[in-house]
């Protein structure tokens, strides 16, 4: 076989494609929103669940050192699991404020949920049709997003907050 440039080019491009395939295989195909970290949230404007006239916006968030935005619903069982961590955060640490976004839920159910387990939230936003949550790239609840006073996303937690993630959050805010 005579070695010519064409042959080398063809061989290398085939190998290149195969390597890309191989790399592609190793990639996690689960939809993830890791790319959210480091980005800034914008167009944040939420209505209070019990009070139609009360809103929270970006300006309000900038006043907090840290804000944890937590997506929850009364019908969501894992939300109950993470609730004690949220209570813990809100009771002991002043530098973090917690905003709950009530995902596809009824007002009364949400209220009795919080009555039963305690209310860790400084503000509870309404998202009855789930559209606001989608804007945050939420695809299942519970999920939480930790932002700082520049509105930059520092951490994103998919699924209920557990001990490890709780400690991570403490490390960040201390």
């Amino acid at each position, binding site marked *: *076989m005579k070695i010519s440039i064409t042959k080398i080019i063809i061989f290398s491009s085939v190998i290149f*494609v195969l390597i890309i*395939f*191989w790399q*592609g295989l190793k*990639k996690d195909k689960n939809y993830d929103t890791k790319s959210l970290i480091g980005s800034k949230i914008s167009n944040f404007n939420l209505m209070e669940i019990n009070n139609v006239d009360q809103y929270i916006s970006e300006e309000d968030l900038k006043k907090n050192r840290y804000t944890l935005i937590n997506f929850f619903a009364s019908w969501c069982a894992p939300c109950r699991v993470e609730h004690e961590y949220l209570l813990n955060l809100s009771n002991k640490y002043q530098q973090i404020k917690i905003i709950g976004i009530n995902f596809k839920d009824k007002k009364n159910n949400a209220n009795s949920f919080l009555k039963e387990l305690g209310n860790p939230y400084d503000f509870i936003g309404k998202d009855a049709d789930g559209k606001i949550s989608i804007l945050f790239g939420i695809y299942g609840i519970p999920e939480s997003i930790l932002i700082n006073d520049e509105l930059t996303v520092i951490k994103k937690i998919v699924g209920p907050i557990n001990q490890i993630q709780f400690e991570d959050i403490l490390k960040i805010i201390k």
Partner: protein
Amino acid sequence: MLSNIGISLVVLVLILSFLIIYTASVDLKISGQNIKRKIYKLSLYQITFTILSFFTLIIGFINSDFSLINVYENSHTTKPLFYKIAGTWGNHEGSLLLWVNILVIFSYLFLVFNYTHDKKFRLYTLIFQNILILGFLIFLLINSNPFNSIYPIPVEGLGLNPILQDPALAIHPPLLYVGFVGCSIYFSAAMASLLSGYDGKLFARSIKTWVKISWCFQTLGIIVGSIWAYYELGWGGFWFWDPVENASLLPWFAITALMHSLLVLEKRNTLYFWVIILCLSTFILSVTGTFLVRSGILNSVHTFASDPSRGIYILFFLSLMILSSLTIFFFKYKKENYNFTLKSRETFILVNNWFMVFFLVTVLIGMLYPIFLDVLTNVKISVGPPFFNIVIIPLVVPFMVLMAIGPKFGWVKSKDKIFYKVLFLILGAIVINLFIIYFFGTYSLLSNLIFIAAIFLILHSFLDIKKFIKNKRNTELARIISHLGFGLLVFFIGINHQFSLEEDFNLKVGEIKKTHNYKINFNNIKIKENKNYKAVIGNFKLTNLNNNLVQYLNPEIRIYSNPETLTYEAAIKTKITSDLYLTMSNVSRSDYYNIKFQNKPFMVWIWISALMIALGGFIQLSFKKNEN
């Protein structure tokens, strides 16, 4: 029990493959034109055991033998018998067994039917085909064994994905498999031809039938898949440029190019290496498509529970296939001289091949680009219809014109004066196009060109039919029907695209909606219990305000229990001139239903013309004998 029988049969096939490779290699050194009887015998055992293993799995599905994990995961006792059987290939493991079956069946048939051809060539083909068989058998055994057992035996299975419970989809995979896996035989034959030096005309003759068979089945398989998407998915479309559809198109472009250039090789004894490239790439593209779809790199309805280890194995095997075939090809490649004159049939066939390669590369780029971008830069994008429409559609115009004119030229050099005829027909096409605009409405410049080119091709084909009736040359008929089918397909897709109505709105029971010239009454809702699902059936009265024609449409929302899934069944009223298409879906926490209403002109003609393309291939297959 079944598990043991199945695994034993598969292992037997594996051993037989080794034996065939071994005896064939020994036989290679023996001169003479006859292959040893022993090889025929081994191949006969191999095909028998392979088919038996497949039947074992089918029996497992029919009897709902949940001791097989595969049956447990993909079947259910309450499923209708038809879908129990279809369930055999409705999953990754079962379909892989079907894949191996087709490899073996083609291997055997090629050996038996090609007895007039060179011994060395046939033996090499057999060896390569058995290497492929081995590769897939090992994959099946170590990674995707449909005969794996489960203990304790579950009482009930998990069920088959409801969207797969559809007649079109029950036959879609076997058709495509014959089409795609059938390509393996001329992959092997091409490798054998390079090694044994059995080239030119005779090689073309040896693979001709197999190319036609797999072309017919691929074409039919793709059409059936598209019909399924239209009736089952409820989006009102029939082609979405979805990565999986694209994956099925890639080998189709290659094989269509191959079908045409094979003619040149057979008649003119040239283009040999180009034909080899097409033979190799058709199967390589089939396996690449399978890899992309099955490994989960591309997500789609075809991704069975995705498992990266699967992907790594197919990728390994694919790399082996590509690199070894490339190496052998480069070793044997010699520069060919073509002396084609401009006005000859072979020139036009070459042009056809350029177009096919262009379409192939376009679709390949559209499909691979997102994967590349994701791997290299972590950016996720998807390449959608706009890209393909912009790049491909304009090229379809000259493609159709050449498709009409090309077959007019004879081989080598042609003296026909076709200029005036072409001019006349183009004028005819323009006039017809103006009629359409006058009666139905205007469209863009590009659409005008598409319509004119399509009508030109259709008119040309009609003239060809007239000529055919006079001199009755059977090979011509196949070509005329396929080309006419393509012209009609583009024409009806164009019409359908230009003049479809689509309305999206919410409606409560008892409400009326007026849209365009239709009045839609939402009469009532019924709930019906079926064997494996519960259906919420809406009753809609549709009045055409132009002619007061009343029709009832009953779209359904089906709630399947095993596994629990919602599907939306469109109500489709098909008429010769148009389809009325209505889907309803529930709007959560309200009495409203979301209704999607469409009026799609000439839908049924899209299927008919697509089927005509495939029909041409089948006609050619059936006339093969008379022609020789």
